C-alpha cells in the first residue's frame, strides 16, 4: 500500500500549496477512510450488542431492580409483648412512640450535602451526628433499607420534620413502641433492656425474620425470650420518587401481630424486698469496720422444690428506661463505657449469675457431705475445735480463738468451726489417689463450678480447683515452677472452708442450698413461667407455651448424710452456739442457714494495690421441715456474714412469710 501510495504521489507535479492543489483521493487516504468506516461499524456493533445484552437478555432482572427502586417496603412495628411477674403484675409494658428513619438511597448524593442534612436533623431531634454517620457507614451496602436513628420523637419534632419534608430527603417517621418500666429500676438486670438491632445481630438473625429497623432484647429476659416477645412486623408498600417522597399513600400488605406476654416466676413484692434488703445489708456493713468498703451484692430467692426464681437482686443497679427513646450518653456511660462502669461499680452486671466470689463458710455443707460420702468422717465423730490447726509447719487459724472443745459434725456446721473442717480438708488430701478428688467431685456434682442452666445470660461458671486444673493453669512451658503446679495440703485445707481458689456465683449457692432443703435434688433455676396471650377484661389469658420447671436431677447424696447437714444448719440459726441465732433465732418461721465470711483480695476503685476484704454471705431456707424458699445473700466487702448478709436475707424471709423477727444481736463468722 505504501509503495503504491508513493507511486501515486509521484504522478503529481510539485505544486504551489497556496493554489488549490490538484487533489485526488489517494489510496492512502482511502485506506484511512476505510479504517474509520470499520471503526464506526465496530463501535455500532458494540453498542448494539451491549444494548441487546442489557435490554433483552437481562431486561427482567433490571426491570425488577427498577421496581425495587421505586417501591419501598415499610415495616410496621409489632407491639412488643409485656413482661409480667408471677401474679400478673406488669413489669414492662409499651407506650406508643415515633421513630426516625433514614433511607440511605434517598439521602443527598454528595457527602457534603448529606452531612448538612444530618446536622439539620440533629438540630431538630438531638440525635448525634457522629452516631448517624457511624450507622450509615456500618449500614453501607444496602441503600434500600432504612436505618432507625432514634425512637421516641416528640410531637413538635415530628411536625417540624413533616412540614419541611422537602428539606429532609430520605427522612421518614414511623409509628413505633417504647418500653415502659412501671417499677423503675426494679429487677433491671433480670429484665434487661431493648435496643436497636446492630448490623452484626441483623446479619446473624436475618433468616429468623428480623428487619434492620427492629428493636431487639439486648440483655436479661428481654434478650433470652426475644423471639416470643417481639411479635411479627407487618409490612406496607409505598411508591416513592428518587427523593424518597411518597407518591400516594402506603398500601398495607400484612398487619403487624403483637408479641406474646412473658410471665416470670418473680414475685415483684419479694423482688422489691430483696433489693431493699441488699441496700439495708450494705448500710449495716458500713456500720462495722470490716464492711466499710461494702459497695455491692446480690440476693437470690428461689423455690427449692422446682427452681423457680422468686427474686433476683443485684446492686448497684440502674434504670432500664435510660435505654428508651432518646438515649442520654451521660446516663448510659456506666453501662457501656468501661471506665465509667468501673467508677459506678458495674451496675450492668447481674451479680447473682455473672459475678463470682469465694464462698467461705457457706461452702462447709459441701465439705461435710463429701466427707461423709467419702467415709472420712462419721457425723458423731468428735474432732477437736481448736483456735488453730497446724500442718506441715503451716498454721491455719480458726475464726475465733475462744474455743477449744471436741465437737461433732452438726455442731461444727452450727458453730462454723474452721479447725474441724481443716481436719476434714487434711483427710481429703490424705485420701489415696485411686479415690479421686472426692471434695471437688462432690462440689461439682452439687453444681459448683458449672453453669446452673438458668434462662439468663451471661452466666459465670466459677471455679472448683483440682490438681489437674493447677497443672493446666500453670504449665511448665510458660515458665511456672513445679511448686506453682503442685497441689499442696494447704489447698485442700483451705478449700474445706470454701477458701483458696474456690469461686462461686450466688445462684450456684442458692441451688446448692435448695438441694439441701429439698432432700438432695438439683433443680434448674428458671425465670420464665410461660408465654401467653394477655386476655382482655372478660377473657382470661391464654397460655401458649409453658416453660415452668424442668425435672430436678438427683445429686446422688446420701439422705442420711444430708439430714446431719440440715440439722447443723438448723442449729446454726437456733442453737445457743449457732452463728445465725441472733438474726434468725426469734423469727416465727423455722429458718435453717449458714453464715459465711470469705476473704478475698480486692483492689478497690482508685486503689493501686489489693487488700484482703471479707465477703459477707448467708445462705439458707425455710420453713425447716417443708422448705418453700431458699435465699442466698452476698454483700461484697461486707464483712462478717452475720453482720450484713444474714440480716439482709432475713428481710426477704420477713416479706415472704409476712412476719417479722426481733433481731437481738449480730452473730459472727
Amino acid at each position, binding site marked *: 500500500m505504501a509503495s503504491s501510495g508513493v507511486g501515486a504521489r509521484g504522478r503529481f*507535479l*510539485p*505544486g504551489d*500549496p497556496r*493554489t*488549490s*492543489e*490538484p*487533489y*485526488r*483521493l*489517494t489510496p*492512502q*487516504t*482511502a485506506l*484511512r*477512510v476505510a*479504517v*474509520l*468506516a470499520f*471503526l*464506526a461499524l465496530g*463501535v*455500532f456493533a*458494540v*453498542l*448494539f450488542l*451491549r*444494548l*441487546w445484552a*442489557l*435490554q*433483552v437478555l*437481562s*431486561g*427482567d*432482572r*433490571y*426491570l425488577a*431492580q*427498577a*421496581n425495587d*427502586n*421505586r417501591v419501598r417496603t415499610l415495616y410496621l412495628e409489632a407491639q412488643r409483648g409485656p413482661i409480667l411477674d408471677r401474679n400478673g403484675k406488669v413489669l414492662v409494658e409499651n407506650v406508643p412512640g415515633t421513630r426516625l428513619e433514614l433511607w*440511605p*438511597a434517598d*439521602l443527598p*448524593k454528595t*457527602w457534603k450535602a448529606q452531612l448538612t442534612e444530618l446536622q439539620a436533623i440533629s438540630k431538630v431531634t438531638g440525635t448525634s451526628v457522629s452516631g448517624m454517620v457511624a450507622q450509615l457507614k456500618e449500614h453501607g*451496602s444496602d*441503600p434500600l433499607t432504612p436505618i432507625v436513628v432514634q425512637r421516641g420523637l416528640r410531637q413538635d419534632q415530628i411536625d417540624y420534620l413533616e412540614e419541611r419534608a422537602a428539606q429532609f430527603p430520605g427522612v421518614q417517621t414511623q409509628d413505633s413502641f417504647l418500653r415502659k418500666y412501671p417499677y423503675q429500676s426494679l429487677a433491671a438486670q433480670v429484665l434487661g433492656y431493648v435496643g436497636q438491632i446492630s448490623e452484626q445481630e441483623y446479619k446473624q438473625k436475618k433468616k429468623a425474620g428480623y428487619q434492620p429497623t427492629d428493636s431487639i432484647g439486648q440483655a436479661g429476659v428481654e434478650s433470652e425470650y426475644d423471639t416470643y416477645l417481639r411479635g411479627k412486623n407487618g409490612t406496607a408498600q409505598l411508591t*416513592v*420518587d*428518587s*427523593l424518597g417522597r411518597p*407518591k400516594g399513600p402506603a398500601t398495607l400488605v400484612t398487619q403487624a401481630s403483637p408479641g406474646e406476654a412473658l410471665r416470670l416466676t418473680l414475685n415483684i413484692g419479694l423482688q422489691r424486698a430483696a433489693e431493699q434488703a441488699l441496700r439495708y445489708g450494705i448500710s449495716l456493713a458500713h456500720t462495722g469496720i470490716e464492711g466499710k468498703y461494702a459497695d455491692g451484692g446480690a440476693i437470690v430467692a428461689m423455690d427449692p422444690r422446682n427452681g423457680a426464681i422468686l427474686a433476683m437482686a443485684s446492686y448497684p443497679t440502674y434504670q432500664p428506661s435510660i435505654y428508651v427513646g432518646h438515649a442520654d450518653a451521660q446516663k448510659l456511660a456506666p453501662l457501656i463505657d468501661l471506665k465509667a462502669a468501673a467508677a459506678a461499680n458495674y451496675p450492668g452486671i447481674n451479680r447473682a449469675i455473672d459475678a463470682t466470689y469465694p464462698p467461705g463458710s457457706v461452702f462447709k455443707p459441701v465439705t461435710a457431705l463429701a466427707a461423709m460420702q467419702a467415709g472420712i468422717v462419721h457425723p458423731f465423730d468428735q474432732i477437736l475445735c481448736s483456735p488453730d490447726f497446724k500442718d506441715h509447719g503451716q498454721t491455719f487459724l480458726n475464726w475465733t480463738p475462744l474455743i477449744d472443745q471436741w465437737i461433732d459434725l452438726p455442731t461444727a456446721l452450727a458453730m462454723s468451726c474452721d479447725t474441724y473442717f481443716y481436719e476434714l480438708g487434711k483427710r481429703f488430701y490424705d485420701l489415696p489417689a485411686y479415690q479421686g478428688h472426692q471434695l471437688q467431685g462432690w462440689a461439682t456434682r452439687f453444681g459448683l463450678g458449672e453453669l446452673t442452666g438458668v434462662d439468663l445470660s451471661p452466666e459465670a461458671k466459677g471455679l472448683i480447683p483440682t490438681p489437674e486444673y493447677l497443672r493446666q493453669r500453670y504449665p511448665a512451658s510458660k515458665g511456672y515452677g513445679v511448686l506453682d503446679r503442685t497441689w499442696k495440703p494447704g489447698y485442700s485445707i483451705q478449700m474445706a472452708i470454701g477458701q483458696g481458689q474456690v469461686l462461686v456465683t450466688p445462684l450456684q449457692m442458692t441451688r446448692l442450698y435448695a438441694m439441701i432443703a429439698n432432700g438432695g435434688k438439683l433443680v434448674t433455676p428458671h425465670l420464665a413461667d410461660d408465654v401467653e396471650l394477655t386476655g382482655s377484661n372478660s377473657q382470661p389469658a391464654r397460655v401458649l407455651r409453658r416453660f415452668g420447671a424442668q425435672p430436678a436431677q438427683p445429686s446422688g447424696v446420701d439422705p442420711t448424710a444430708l439430714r446431719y447437714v440440715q440439722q447443723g444448719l438448723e442449729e446454726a440459726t437456733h442453737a445457743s452456739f449457732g452463728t445465725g441465732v441472733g438474726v434468725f433465732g426469734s423469727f416465727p418461721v423455722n429458718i435453717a442457714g449458714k453464715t459465711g465470711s470469705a476473704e478475698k483480695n480486692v483492689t478497690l476503685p482508685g486503689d493501686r494495690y489489693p487488700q484482703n476484704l471479707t465477703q459477707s454471705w448467708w445462705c439458707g431456707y425455710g420453713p425447716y421441715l417443708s422448705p418453700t424458699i431458699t435465699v442466698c445473700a452476698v454483700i461484697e466487702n461486707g464483712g462478717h456474714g452475720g453482720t450484713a448478709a444474714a440480716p439482709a436475707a432475713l428481710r426477704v424471709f420477713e416479706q415472704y412469710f409476712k412476719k417479722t423477727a426481733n433481731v437481738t444481736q449480730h452473730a459472727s463468722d
Partner: protein
Amino acid sequence: MAIEAVDTRARGLRNRREAEVVGLGGVLRRLDWILLLALAGVVGYGLWAIDGITRHDPGGSAAPRQGLYAAVGVLLFIAALFVDPDTYRRFRRPIYFGTLGIMVFVLAAGAATRGSHRWINLGFFTFQPSEFGKVLFVLVLAGFLADRARSISAPEVPLGALGYGLVPIALVFVQPDIGTALVYTAALAAVLFVAGVRWSHLVVLITLTVVFALAVLWLLPAAGVNVLKPYQAARLTGFTHPSTDPQGATYNLRQSITAVGAGGLRGRGIVGATQTRLNYLPEHATDFAFASLAEEHGFFGASILLLLYLLVVWRALKIVAGARDLYCAIVAGGIAFMFLFQVFVNSAMTMGIAPITGIPLPFVSVGGSSMITNFLAIGILQAIYLRRPARRFS
C-alpha cells in the same frame, strides 16, 4: 492559467469549480439528501424522545426549547452551505486565537464569580464556547495540516498540530470539562489520521496518550499527586467496577444501567419509565438522555436512534472520500469521527462500558450549544459535499 497549461486535470478542476456557482438551485441539486434525511430523522426523533424524557420534570417538557435551538441550528446549517470551506482555512488564525480568547475569558469570568467556568450567559441563552470550539478546532487544525500536506511525514508537522491542539484542550480540561476535552482529543486524533500522519507517528502518539491517561488516573494518585479531583477520577474509572460504591461515584451509573435494562425490548413507555419519571436517573435530560430513551422506548426505540446515527456517520465518511481537496477531507474526517466519538462515549457510558463524562448525545441531549454546534458541523459537511468534484473515482 499556468496550471492549466501543464495539467489538464487541474484545468478541468478549475472549470468545474467555476461551474459550482452556488445558486439555490445548485445547492438543492447537489445536496446529500440521504444525509439531510438522516439529520432530519435524528433531530425529529430526538425532539420527540426528549419530550417524553422531560415531560415529568419540574420544568416541564424541554421539547419546545430544543425545537427553538434546532431552528437556530437550521439557520446556521443553511448559512454554512454558502460558505466555501476555504474561507475557514484562510481565516484559521483569527478563528483559532479568537476561540482561545473566549475560552480564557470564560475561565477568568468563572474564576471571578467563583462559579462554573463553562458558560457565558447571554440572557436568553447560556453560551458554551467549548461546544462551538469543537467544530472550529477541527477547521483550524485541518488548515494547519493541509498546508503542510507535502511534509506530513516529517515529525514536526504532527508535533506542530499537537502543539496547536493541546492549548484549547488544556483550557477545556481546566474548566473543568473532561468530557469535552476528550472530544477535542478525539478530533485531534482524527484530523492527524485523515491528514496522513505516518502510522509510526500515530502509534507513538497513541502510546503517549495511554501512558498519560494511566499516569493521571492511577500512577500519579498512587504517588500522591492528584491531577484530577478524586470524584472525577472515580467517575472515569467507576464503570469498571460499578457496584463498589452504589451511593457515591457509581450511583448514576448503576441507575443508568438499570434504566436501560428495564426498558426491555419494547420500552416501558413515558408513564411507566419510573427510573426517569421518579428521577432515579439523574441528568436524564442531558448526560443520561440515552438511558432514558432506552428505558422509555426499549431496544427498538434505541436501535432506531443508533441506526440514524450510523447513517449520518456513513454519509460523513462518504463525504470524506469524495472531498474536493485534502483540507475538506480532513475537516469532514474530523467532524465524522468527532460525531462518532460523542455518540459512542455517551451511549456507551449509560450502558456501563465507557467512563462517565459529561458528553452530550448529539441532537438529543437538552442543550442549545450542543444542538447548534452539531447543526453547524453537518452544515459544513454538506458545504463540502456541495463542492465535490465530479465523480472520478467511482
